């Protein structure tokens, strides 16, 4: 008897716990989605509707407002989502490619070869991982100003060749997964060192590269601090810098238009995420387990 009641009380506790877990998780899911719903719901309202009832999902003339809002954000010669996209795309894509390729190459150099300065180089990489972007910014800006890199997208792309954190991560990965026997047998077959890296080692590193590429891409795409300082020409601005214009004096009263502008910058990310979310979340998990 006593046993039975104990069992049923355990069962009841299990059930309560499960209910609590689902309720809290669903509340957090709603909290996550709420801002995006607001973004969409206000992009097709006019200023009065936004001011009157931001939370409502209904507009009297959604299509007309959408058209009108689009006209408002693009007609002021400041916010050009197309230009921002193009620039962000160029910067993020090229810097991601440089970032992962050269990080893999450097990590391979540390893992596969014995060289005199290797250990000190390795220690240096660990040490410089902590340098925050701000410390380089003043000096970097002065240098960019002197050698004419201001308003050049390349000023944001080329530095990504040297990414200490990515090298650190890839070295960890290589140490665990690279077998020197494969390299040796390729050498015996007469392959050059550079070819071995490109055709044998690089494919082996695919999971690590994919993870780091996602981080690098998102990081570069979302970066505001350095582009804001380096890019002043309106044709060179990246998307986050464009977005920051929506905050200024140019769009004071066009509430619906601001929401539409924000939505335009977010939509591609959400679409990409919808397709790649599984890989992204897995990649994050892989990136975290560094130890």
């Amino acid at each position: 008897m006593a046993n039975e009641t104990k069992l049923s009380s355990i069962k009841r506790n299990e059930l309560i716990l499960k209910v609590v877990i689902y309720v809290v998780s669903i509340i957090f899911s709603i909290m996550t989605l709420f801002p995006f719903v607001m973004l969409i719901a206000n992009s097709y309202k006019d200023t009065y509707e936004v001011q009157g009832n931001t939370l409502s999902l209904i507009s009297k003339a959604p299509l007309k407002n959408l058209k009108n809002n689009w006209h408002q954000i693009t007609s002021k010669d400041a916010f050009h989502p197309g230009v921002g996209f193009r620039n962000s795309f160029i910067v993020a894509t090229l810097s991601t490619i440089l970032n992962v390729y050269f990080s893999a190459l450097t990590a391979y150099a540390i893992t596969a070869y014995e060289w005199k300065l290797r250990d000190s180089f390795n220690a240096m990489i660990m040490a410089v991982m902590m340098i925050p972007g701000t410390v380089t910014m003043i000096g970097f800006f002065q240098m960019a100003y002197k050698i004419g890199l201001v308003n050049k997208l390349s000023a944001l792309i080329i530095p990504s060749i040297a990414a200490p954190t990515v090298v650190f991560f890839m070295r960890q990965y290589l140490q665990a997964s690279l077998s020197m026997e494969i390299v040796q047998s390729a050498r015996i077959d007469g392959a050059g060192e550079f070819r071995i890296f490109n055709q044998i080692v690089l494919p082996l590193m695919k999971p690590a590269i994919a993870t780091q590429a996602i981080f690098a891409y998102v990081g570069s795409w979302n970066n505001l601090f350095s582009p804001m300082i380096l890019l002043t020409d309106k044709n060179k601005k990246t998307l986050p810098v464009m977005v920051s214009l929506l905050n200024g004096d140019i769009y004071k009263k066009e509430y619906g238009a601001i929401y539409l502008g924000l939505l335009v910058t977010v939509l591609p990310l959400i679409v990409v995420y919808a397709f790649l979310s599984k890989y992204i979340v897995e990649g994050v998990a892989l990136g975290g387990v560094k130890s």
Partner: protein
Amino acid sequence: MRNKKLVDYAKYGYLFSLPFILTFCIFTLYPVIYTFVIGFTDLKGAGNTEIHVLPFISPKDGSPFYIFNNFKDVLTSKTFHKAFSNTWIIWFLNFFPQMGFALLFTAWFTDRRSKVKGTGLFKVLFYMPNIITAATMAILFQKLFGFPVGAVNQLFNAAKPYNFLINNWPVKFIIAFVQFFQWYGHTMVNLIAGVIGISPEIFEAAEIDGANRVQTFFKVTIPCIRQIMLFVLVTSLIGGLNMFDIPQLLVGPKNANGAALTTNMYIRNQAFDGSYLYNRAAAASVILFIIIVVLSAIVFFLLRDKDEAKLKKLKKAELKAARKGM
């Protein structure tokens, strides 16, 4: 034997790390040194390239250590104090709930006994805010908390709208919330990965020993994922002390009222907004750098693997004894 051809492989080590080293020297090392040096000079004004290192003794009043004047200016500046404490407060407000909820969801989603369904979907949803541009998030929240007709005011106090964004604590809480909102999913995904990596035998053993859920979590799970928690703590600390996008766009540098001014905003304002005080900005960023290095070192020291450290010590002692014996 073909191997006897004696290829000098060491040179490839140098060759393959050359692009990294060159880029690093040009785009990181040189600017860092430059920043350090500027901290000791009188460089200010847009387009000014004439730099003078400050003399050791002040030309004005003859007091010594004038060379550290920029650092003194920063360290005694009320604005810098405010920016510094703001940055810390916002980081605390964001980090502890973030870690707390991440741990809670980790415990729930990895629980072996209740087997929650739909964890994959929740993970994907919770992580989503992390990929969204912080700039966009900041402006969106600014509109939602807008005065007098933002969504929050419409919902709770339509009759007496409240201006969240100019008041000290509300604005800090909002910034911390946006940070939390963007990062708790990321932290959770990291922690879950760590827990999945723990050998199931350990949990089985704990179960057989009669440990309940809470005991298992605090006595088994958390010690096993300590390294990942350390990693999250350090990255969050560095990211938090470099906070810029969200406060900058949520309130803007001018009408922030000082309530949301962070150190990075302070540095950028000194260098690029109007006054072009590069020297002071450089000194401030050097100070920030030193703080970050010291803090990271402390965190690593406190949370280092104590058993491993003991083992190392033991080995060292053995080596010493062996040497003495010889």
